[in-house]
């Protein structure tokens, strides 16, 4: 949903107050939030232990990193032997990935204090970077509907509506499943749920209209850009295996060279490992230095899981992932005659 600058300032203020009181009352040992980055339209994760630093926390429409990824694993222990409590400033899509982590016993709910932030139209900086190519943004001016970027010998205005992306399939006015504190939008605008449904998988529907040859060419060209830096895997909060399949060398499952077929294998297998778990936060796509369209594979798998088992990751903290579990009424049209 769109949000006025005024609402954003109010929300930022409330966020800082909440963070400050949590640190003062010693309800948390550390807060993880966002700070302004050294480049325009960029934020960087901020880790604060002192209430005097809360004024450095920011909230804006380019807070795209998934901060759940920065939860220390294992949680650090204090001097008295108990685990530290971490306060996290999370968007709805980030909270969904936290739900999956808790469900998978990677994080204990009681060690996390969630400050849930309201949803809004986040800006996909990859779209701006793609438009500008190598040009550097020296200054960015954000207004109600537009972003104007200026650099050496150029100026370009983008409409925010063209830059938004729908993280985590979040509808815009839903409350997150779990939270401890919630900062709400003081002026929420009504949300068209049906529009969100079609928007979320629009790219997928358009893509599925292509012929198999066109799809193959698309993936070949996208995945030949991949340099196997594993930024996608490292930025993903749900890729937490101590030894990733791609790093295994006894046996080595496939090559580390940047051959397009090896790249495809890596992304497809990682996709399958995330099926039923990926919440669509798009941290992978944001992190990719080459601008590969990674979220398309995960989006397809999310839709497939939803269609087949009516399951969406990150909603129900108790319900196990259908690919890691079975129910007696799971569809089995591949083996028996079903109605």
């Amino acid at each position, binding site marked *: 949903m769109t949000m006025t600058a005024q609402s954003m300032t109010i929300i930022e203020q409330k966020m800082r107050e909440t963070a400050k009181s949590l640190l003062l009352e010693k309800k948390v040992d550390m807060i993880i939030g966002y700070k302004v980055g*050294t*480049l325009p339209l960029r934020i960087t994760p901020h880790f604060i232990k002192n209430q005097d630093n809360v004024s450095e926390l920011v909230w804006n429409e380019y807070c795209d*990193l998934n901060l759940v990824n920065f939860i220390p694993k294992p949680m650090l222990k204090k001097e008295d032997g108990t685990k530290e409590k971490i306060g996290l400033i999370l968007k709805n899509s980030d909270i969904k990935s936290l739900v999956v982590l808790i469900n998978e016993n990677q994080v204990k709910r009681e060690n996390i204090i969630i400050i849930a932030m309201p949803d809004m139209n986040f800006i996909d900086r990859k779209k701006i970077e793609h438009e*500008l190519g190598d040009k*550097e943004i020296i200054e960015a001016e954000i207004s109600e509907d537009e972003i104007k970027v200026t650099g050496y010998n150029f100026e370009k205005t983008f409409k925010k509506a063209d830059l938004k992306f729908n993280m985590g399939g979040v509808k815009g006015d839903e409350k997150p499943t779990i939270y401890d504190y919630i900062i709400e939008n003081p002026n929420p605008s009504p949300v068209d749920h049906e529009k969100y449904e079609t928007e979320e998988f629009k790219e997928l529907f358009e893509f599925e209209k292509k012929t198999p040859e066109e799809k193959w060419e698309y993936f070949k060209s996208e995945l030949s850009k991949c340099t196997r*830096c594993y930024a996608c895997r490292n930025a993903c909060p749900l890729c937490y295996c101590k030894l990733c399949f791609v*790093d295994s060398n006894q046996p080595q499952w496939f090559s580390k*060279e940047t051959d397009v077929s090896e790249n495809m294998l890596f992304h497809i297998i990682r996709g399958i490992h995330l099926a039923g778990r990926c919440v669509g936060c798009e941290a992978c796509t944001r992190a990719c230095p080459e601008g590969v369209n990674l979220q398309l594979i995960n989006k397809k798998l999310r839709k497939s899981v939803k269609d087949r088992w009516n399951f969406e990751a990150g909603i129900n903290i108790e319900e196990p992932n259908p690919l890691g579990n079975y129910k007696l009424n799971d569809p089995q049209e591949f083996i028996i005659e079903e109605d």
Partner: protein
Amino acid sequence: MTKKIISKSELNSIIMSLSKEYDLYAPALGKTENSLKYIELSSDNYEFPEFQNTRIPPKDILFPRTEELFSYKNLPDGNIEIEEPQEEKKEKIIFGIRSCDARSFKLFDIFFDAGKYSDYYYFKKRNRTIFIGMACNQPFTTCFCTSVKGDPFSKEGLDIQIIDLLNETYLIIGITEKGEKILSKITIGREPSQEELNKVSELAEESKNRIKLNIELGDIKEKLDNLYESDIWESDTQKCLGCGSCTFICPTCHCFDVQDQSNAEGGKRIRIWDSCQFPMFTKEGSGHNPRNFKKQRMRQRIYHKFNFYLSNYDCIGCVGCGRCIRACPSCGDVRQTLELITQKVGGN
């Protein structure tokens, strides 16, 4: 030192004619991206673009991401037949590189030249390569070459330098014997006037002044010698994802892994880029990992470039191009780290 003035169209025609005789790499748009890359020119229709610097450095021309060292076939009698990769026929020209990238190849030369154990694969290509640079008139806000003993108009590492005089003409300067040999084949162009030569120093000064950041790194090695156990490595690294994007996009990073791939018929040995930011980089056969924690790996990266290189080779292992800052998904900034280090006094 040959010096000539040429026009923009003459520049493009020189590039085109050189590309017929040499494997010429120049900044051009790739097939799918909207950003420039140093790629081998194949069309007849090339125009040297206006740009500040490419996102990806030209290091993969001489140090490919994946390089076959040799391949082998299994013979029926149990022996193997080794095949070396084809000899490079033509010489290469890397055209239009900025001074920072030219300097990065000098650093590669230093690293790969280990006397008796010099890297055959790198030098095989490098010794057949001619570097033609384009001086940098408009550094990025993230550039800091002047802090690491570089300069936007530096001739270091170049065989020929071209300077854009910002009025649709260019000054070409021959620097080395290799460069002069090429210039001797170019018949177009005219003698520069004194005014034009004076303009070069003006442009050089203006470009240098555009670089806002100037960190005093004269004693960075000594400062780092005292900061090994500092807590800045913990706090500065919390936001790091360990993704390795910085190392892949860095023009001076050169770490690699060697792997063998084989099947029933034979196989090949390949060299691939590796990153010190990956935990597996230092994992030993015993299972022990001396750099098991992210902060140790980040510390190592900074030390490698700003301390070990100075100890081993008496030069800084960073060219100040700032690409790592733009590539980092967490907006990590090496300039901030360097400022933190230089501001720390004593051992804490």
